[in-house]
Structure formats: C-alpha cells, structure tokens
C-alpha cells in the first residue's frame, strides 16, 4: 500500500458501534451492541493498512489471517470474509462477541500505537452475522470417511472446535453432552444479552449438518466411562468437560436462602430461562438488593443479569481497587452504564439471615491496599473495625470455578495436577492415557473461549495424526 493511501486510511476514525441505550436495555435480555451496518463495516475495514508483517495475527491465539479477512470486508465481499475466518476459527460469530480483543489481537494492532486499533472483533462479528443472516452458510464438501471414530466429552467451545475439525478430516464424531443443550458456558453461563443463544444454536446446527452426532443427557463416567468408550469402538477420546465446579468462600451463612453460586444463578436464568418464569418452570429469587461478590467477567455477567430483573439495587463487592478488576474494561463500563454499583475495597465476612433462613444482609469489611503479593498486585488488607452491614436478599458468589470432578472420578488413571486439572502435553493435547486428549478449561482452569477453541483444534490435529499413524 503506498504511503499516501496509508495516511488517508489512518485518518478514518474508528467506527462506533450502535448499542441499545442503557435505560432501554436494562428492561430486556436482547443483545446490547447492535452491530455494524455494511457501510460502517467497509469504512472500519478500510482503517486496516494491510501490514506486510501483520503483528495482529500473533495476538490472536488461533492465528486468524486478520488482514486478509478485513480486506475482503473492505471490498464488500462479506460472505468470503466469513469463510476466510472459518478456515481458522469455527465460531467467529461467538469470538467476535466474547473475545477479550483489547488484550489480544487489537492490543498489538499497529494502528493502536497511533490511536485506536482496528475493530477486529466487531468486523469478525459482522462478517459471521452477515453470512448467517443471509443464509449463506454452506456445508463444505466432505472428504471420504476414514473409518475412525472419535468421542468428545462435553460440548463447550473446546469440544465444538475439535468436532468441527475432526469431521472435516473424515472421522466419525460423537459428542456426549451432560446437559440438554450444547455449547457449555456459551449457553449456560454467558448471558443472552452478550451472546444470543440462537448464534450458538446455529453453530451447533452447522456441525450437525456436517455429520457430527450430538448425544444430549449423556454424562460420560455415569453412562459409559472413558475406558468403556475406548473399548466399545471409539479410537480416541477428546475431553472438553470444562471448569464447572463453583467455589464457595466458606463464610458463615453461605447456605442461607438467596445465596447463589454464579453458575447456579446464571444457569437458572440462561439455560433454564428463569426470567420468563412462570412461562418457564424454573424459578430464581428476585431480590430488592442484589450483591455480587467478585470482580471478573462472571461477576459482571451476574450483576448485569441481576439488574435486568429490576431490583432496587445491584452492587458488586470486590476486595481490591478498580485497577485490579479482572473483568474486561468494556464489561465494567457496560455494568456501570446500567447502574451497577461498584463497592470496591470491600470484602464480605458473613451472611446474615432472618428466622426463616432467608438472606437479609451481608456483613462486609473495608480494605486497603498493602504490599504487592506473589501475583504482583497489591495485597488487600482489612481495615480494623470497619465492619458494616449491606442489606441484601440475593447474593451471587462469583469467585471462580474449579475442574469438574466427574471425569477424573471415573477415570482413575488420568493424571491431574493439584487443582484437579488434566495434565496434557502442550504441543499435542495428549493426556497420559493412550488415545485420550484434553483441552479447554478442564486443562487450563478458568480461561477463555478462544484459548479453549485453540486447544480443541490443536488436539484435533494430533488426534488425526494418531489415528493415521497409530503411534502414541
């Protein structure tokens, strides 16, 4: 690109993305960002200067050919752009929405050095949505069957990515999912207003049309164990069972009525659609004062979900300061816009109930930041005598998840680390057991959608090699 053109392009301002205004969206569960129009997408795509050595690609955990797909958008070839994306990322409509882009591809984009980076995520979302909404999703020509079959445990992003690759390599793929819906955290955790379920459904439907078989209500370990799957005709198993074990804090009163784990609160609302109770049968307690404990993305999701149930107040209680909030800046911003109250440098010490055992308040202490700890962040220290009571009838504990124990319990010879995560070879995703591979949160602990997908793809490649060569 000649220097003049580059200069021209660098003058184009970052295209803003329309959003539902906060006072509207707190009353509904529809998606918050409205998405680019084709004109906006082309304009935004033109901001990319098509670097010869695109460093953005290195910032993407799966190495999407970013300048290429953006060029196609700039040329108005939206469907082609979506197909280009899908060569490396099976779920662009999902990643475009939920990737922490500001820490990945967009963080290193060269344009970010001079101003605001190219909106890679939004463009990714645009192309994928365009393809889907225009009915342009086509099934690729499938290769001849290899006669090998692979069992996949769980249907989260790691598993979906592995399934997509393996089926395109000609292997038979069966996904076993414990729940009645596929998608893992994408369907039970991440709320509708951030990731509409119909998008996940469309991706799952696409996999099924390519021939992936999904068995719902199938808990591996309780029905067939991994050993049984291997003995009963599967040539390899990929474990993508996720980090679905909620941590509690061990505080007094934690089992009072109204204290939820984020997983339970979000599952009731997302998967079971409690916000449509009583049309849907699963209830959720609807408080006047909701307190969400924690400062990560899950906490933001819980708080933003809670506020849509119209309580008087929703607070986030977090023991460090704003700078240490682990959640994405954008999510914190959205939560604030929607009226979530941030009580920073506060820490809960006990839950207080009424005589029926219903939560009525949470006692907190104030904190200050002391010396840096092992993680390099300043350690929060309790201010003596700072106890106070925060009225609350629903509390949501969002302090993280551990590895789901079902697979480890029923596969005794699978090697785990001290947190219960499956140990795998980083390059290949191989576990210590012949024919068994693993990836995503069951290996990494709580992580991200795109890293889970990257694991799934890497494992698919080494499964393919193992199935071809038989070498372990």
């Amino acid at each position, binding site marked *: 690109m000649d220097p003049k053109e580059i200069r021209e392009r660098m003058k184009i301002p970052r295209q803003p993305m329309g959003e539902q205004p906060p006072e509207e969206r707190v009353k509904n569960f529809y998606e918050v960002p409205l998405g680019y129009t084709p004109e906006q997408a082309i304009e935004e795509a033109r901001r990319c200067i098509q670097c010869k050595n695109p460093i953005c690609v290195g910032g993407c955990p799966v190495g999407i050919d970013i300048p290429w797909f953006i060029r196609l958008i700039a040329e108005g070839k939206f469907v082609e752009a979506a197909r280009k994306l899908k060569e490396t990322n099976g779920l662009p409509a999902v990643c475009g929405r939920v990737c922490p882009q500001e820490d990945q591809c967009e963080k290193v984009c060269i344009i970010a050095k001079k101003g605001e980076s190219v909106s890679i995520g939004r463009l990714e979302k645009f192309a994928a949505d365009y393809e889907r909404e225009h009915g342009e999703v086509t099934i690729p020509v499938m290769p001849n069957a290899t006669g090998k079959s692979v069992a996949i445990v769980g249907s989260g992003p790691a598993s979906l990515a592995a399934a997509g690759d393996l089926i395109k390599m000609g292997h038979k793929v069966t996904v076993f999912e414990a729940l*009645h819906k596929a998608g893992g955290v994408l369907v039970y955790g991440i709320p509708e207003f951030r990731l509409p379920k119909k998008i996940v459904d469309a991706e799952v439907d696409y996999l099924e049309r390519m021939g992936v078989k999904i068995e*719902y*209500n199938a*808990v591996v370990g*309780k029905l067939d164990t991994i050993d049984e799957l291997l003995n009963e005709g599967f040539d390899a198993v990929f474990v993508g069972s996720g980090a679905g074990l*909620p941590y509690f804090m061990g505080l007094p009163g934690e089992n009072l009525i109204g204290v939820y784990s984020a997983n339970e609160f979000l*599952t009731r609302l997302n998967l079971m659609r409690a916000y449509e109770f009583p049309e849907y*049968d699963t209830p959720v307690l609807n408080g006047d004062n909701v307190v969400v404990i924690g400062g990560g993305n899950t906490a933001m999701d819980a708080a933003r979900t809670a506020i849509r149930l119209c309580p008087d107040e929703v607070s986030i209680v977090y023991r460090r300061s704003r700078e240490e909030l682990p959640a994405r800046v954008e999510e914190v911003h959205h939560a604030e816009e929607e009226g979530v109250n941030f009580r920073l440098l506060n820490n809960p010490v006990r839950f207080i109930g009424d005589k029926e*055992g219903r939560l009525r308040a949470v006692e907190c202490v104030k904190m200050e930041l002391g010396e840096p700890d092992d993680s390099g962040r300043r350690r929060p220290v309790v201010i003596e005598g700072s106890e106070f009571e925060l009225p609350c009838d629903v509390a949501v504990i969002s302090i993280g998840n551990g590895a789901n124990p079902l697979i480890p319990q029923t596969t005794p010879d699978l090697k785990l680390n001290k947190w219960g995560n499956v140990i795998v070879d980083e390059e290949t995703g191989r576990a210590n057991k012949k024919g068994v591979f693993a990836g995503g949160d069951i290996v990494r602990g709580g992580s991200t959608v795109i890293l889970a997908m990257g694991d799934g793809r890497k494992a698919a490649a080494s499964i393919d090699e193992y199935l071809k060569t038989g070498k372990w």
Partner: protein
Amino acid sequence: MFEIVGKKELTHLVWQIEIKAPRIAKKRKAGQFVLLRMNEQGERIPLTIVNSDDEAGTITVIVQEVGKSTSILGGMKVGSSILDVVGPLGMPTHIENYGTVVCVGGGIGTAVTYPIGAALKEAGCKVISIVGSRSKDLLILEDEMRGVSDELHITTDDGSSGHHGFVTDVLGEFIKEGLKIDLVIAVGPIPMMRAVSEVTRPSAINTMVSLNPIMVDGTGMCGACRVTIGGENKFVCVDGPEFDGHLVDFEELVMRNRSYFKEEKMAVEEYTYHEGTRCYDKKGDD
C-alpha cells in the same frame, strides 16, 4: 425423547412409571437417580431409579405429585414422551454383606429404600425392613419390600395397619432388645430421617440417609444441592445422595428446600388456571 411405556397408580397421587431409557437401564445401580425435564419449558427434577429392566431397556420411577413438575409427570399418558432424562446420577449405594441391616422407608421414601434393600439382600445381608406411612391406603411397595426382606414391619400413624405409631418406635424397640444392627438405611421425609438418626446416635449404629435437596444440573456444576455434612459443604448430586445421618445438618436442608415456596405455589396456581383455559380453548377450536 423418552417414552413412557407403563404407568400405574400406587396410591392417591403416587404413580409408578416405566420409562424407556435403555442406556440408563444398563448402567444404573441401587441408590442412583435421574433428572427429568418434561417439556421445553420444564424444570429439571430429580427422581430415584426404583428399578430397571436391562432387557426391556426400561427404568422405573415412583413419583408423588407435590407441585407443578411432578403433576405434569403424573398426568402423562403411556405412549407419550418425556423430553429429557439424564442419569444415572449420584453415587451408587455401597453394597456389601454388612450383616444385619435395617431398612427404614417412610411414605414415598420407600421407593428409594426398596432398590437398596433388594441389592443388600442379594449381597447376603439379613434385611429387616420397617415401612411406615400415615395410613394403610398410603402404603406403597408393601409386597415388594416383603419380597426382599427377612422381616417386614409396618407402621401407620393412625393405626390402620401394623404398629400404631412411627417407624422409630419399632427401631427403638430393636435397639432396646439388644438386636445387633450393623447398618440402618433410612429414606423418607426429612423429619423421619432425622428422628431415625437420633434414635441410632446413642448406640453409634452406622446410619445412612438419602437426601433430597433442590437440584438444577445434577452434575456438580451449580451448587444448588449443597448440604452441610459434619461441618463441610457437600454437593448431593455428585457426593451423595447418601450420607451419614449422624453428620447431616437436617435443619439447613429443611430450610433450603423451602427456598422457592412462593414461586412453587404460584407455578401450581398458574398451571391449574392456564391448563384449564388452554383445554377450553382447544375445545373451542375443534
């Protein structure tokens, strides 16, 4: 979809239902349960697997109509299908030849006691059963229990059958008489399980109870089913459902099971009201 292939009324509002679920039938062991979701709007409710037939590929559940979901199930006909059935969940009962085992079943809880009793009998235990209910016509599985027991004792609150009084009266007698009991298994309403645990506590007789908290996923993912056992948090769906009765915080369990009291009532009212009008509308269309 899981077809209902058999159904019979055991007593008022208590149904024995056979469901086609070949894979679960093949794997299930005594003490395990399934989660059912009747339809697209439905919630996921846990029910114990009472029996299974590997050849026919069926499992049997016994359900008491207490709220909306159990009423929907109770109203389903043979030939219709349940949308989702997942299982077998939970840890199976640890079965071995313990010696003398007293199996206590209270009300609908007998549905859970029965498969455990059967498995223990097969393992060579001497099985003494005590089955209690409010009155004679509410007794379930009497013949089945007799079939797997060396001794069967019936109690009713109103004296209409067997001993006039509670299951704990009979159990207390055994202990007083000095009967050597190696294990007591008690399943029934929470107050009953708590009372049994209190009766066996002084003589430190091993006592297992089967807990029934509110559940959502049944795979250890949500923590809705947490209970306090000996001061520790446990998830009933993966660590249970059976626990040492002497360690269970029953009070907390009773409390937590009342979480959705208001919502449950509303659901039943809506259900009765809406189903009524819906039927009416349908008639109008015809």
